[in-house]
C-alpha cells in the first residue's frame, strides 16, 4: 500500500521528442505527488508537483497528468533535450512529510 510503482526503468528519446514516465499508487491517503530529477553525484531536486484535486499541471516543458480514479500519474517532457538526461523519480506523500519514492527512470536524450 505504501509503494509507488514507476515505469519504464530506462528510456531513450531523440532530441526534440516527448519523454513519458508513468507511476501508479495504491494508498488513497497520498495527497501530494512530486517529481524529482537527479543527476549523478547530486541529490534529487524537485521538478514539479501536483495535488490530486488537479488533473494536469504544466511548468514549461514539463507536464504532470493525474488520474485520481485510476490512481496513476505521469510526467511528460516535451521537446526533450540532452540536458534532460538524468534519473527521474515520482513520489507520493501522505500527511505532509514522509515521502515514498518510485524506483526511478533513467532517461537518455540522444542528440
Amino acid at each position, binding site marked *: 500500500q505504501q509503494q509507488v510503482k514507476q515505469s519504464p526503468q530506462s528510456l531513450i528519446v531523440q532530441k526534440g521528442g516527448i519523454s513519458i514516465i508513468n507511476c501508479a499508487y495504491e494508498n488513497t491517503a497520498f495527497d501530494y505527488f512530486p517529481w524529482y530529477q537527479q543527476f549523478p553525484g547530486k541529490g534529487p531536486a524537485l521538478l514539479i508537483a501536483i495535488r490530486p484535486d488537479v488533473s494536469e499541471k504544466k511548468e514549461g516543458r514539463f507536464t504532470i497528468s493525474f488520474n485520481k480514479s485510476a490512481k496513476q500519474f505521469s510526467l511528460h517532457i516535451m521537446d526533450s533535450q540532452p540536458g534532460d538526461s538524468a534519473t527521474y523519480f515520482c513520489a507520493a506523500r501522505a500527511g*505532509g*512529510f*514522509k515521502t515514498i519514492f518510485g524506483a526511478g527512470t533513467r532517461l537518455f536524450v540522444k542528440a
Partner: protein
Amino acid sequence: GAGVSQSPRYKVAKRGQDVALRCDPISGHVSLFWYQQALGQGPEFLTYFQNEAQLDKSGLPSDRFFAERPEGSVSTLKIQRTQQEDSAVYLCASSMTSGLEYNEQFFGPGTRLTVL
C-alpha cells in the same frame, strides 16, 4: 548556507566499524529528513526531525542506526557495527516548515558509504 551540505561525501568503512554522517541543513529550516538510496533505487525514508524532536524513525533499518539533531540544526546519522548491506548513499533533506504543509524538501548531495 546556500544549500544542504553533507560530510563526508565518501566514506569507506570496514565491516564492523562505526560511522557518523553529518548533515548541515539550510539555515532556519525546521524539518530535516534522512533517506537511504541503494544503487539504482529511489530514496527510502529513514527518519524525520522537527527542530530537535525526532518525530518519526520508522524507516531506520535496525537498532544499529541512530540519528540525532540536538540543537535543531545540524544532524548526525550514526551507524554502528556496519554491515555490507549498509552500503548506499545517505541523503539528507530539509524543508522550511513543519510536516503538515507541502513545503519543498531540499536535498543535499549525499554521503556514499561503502562497507568492505
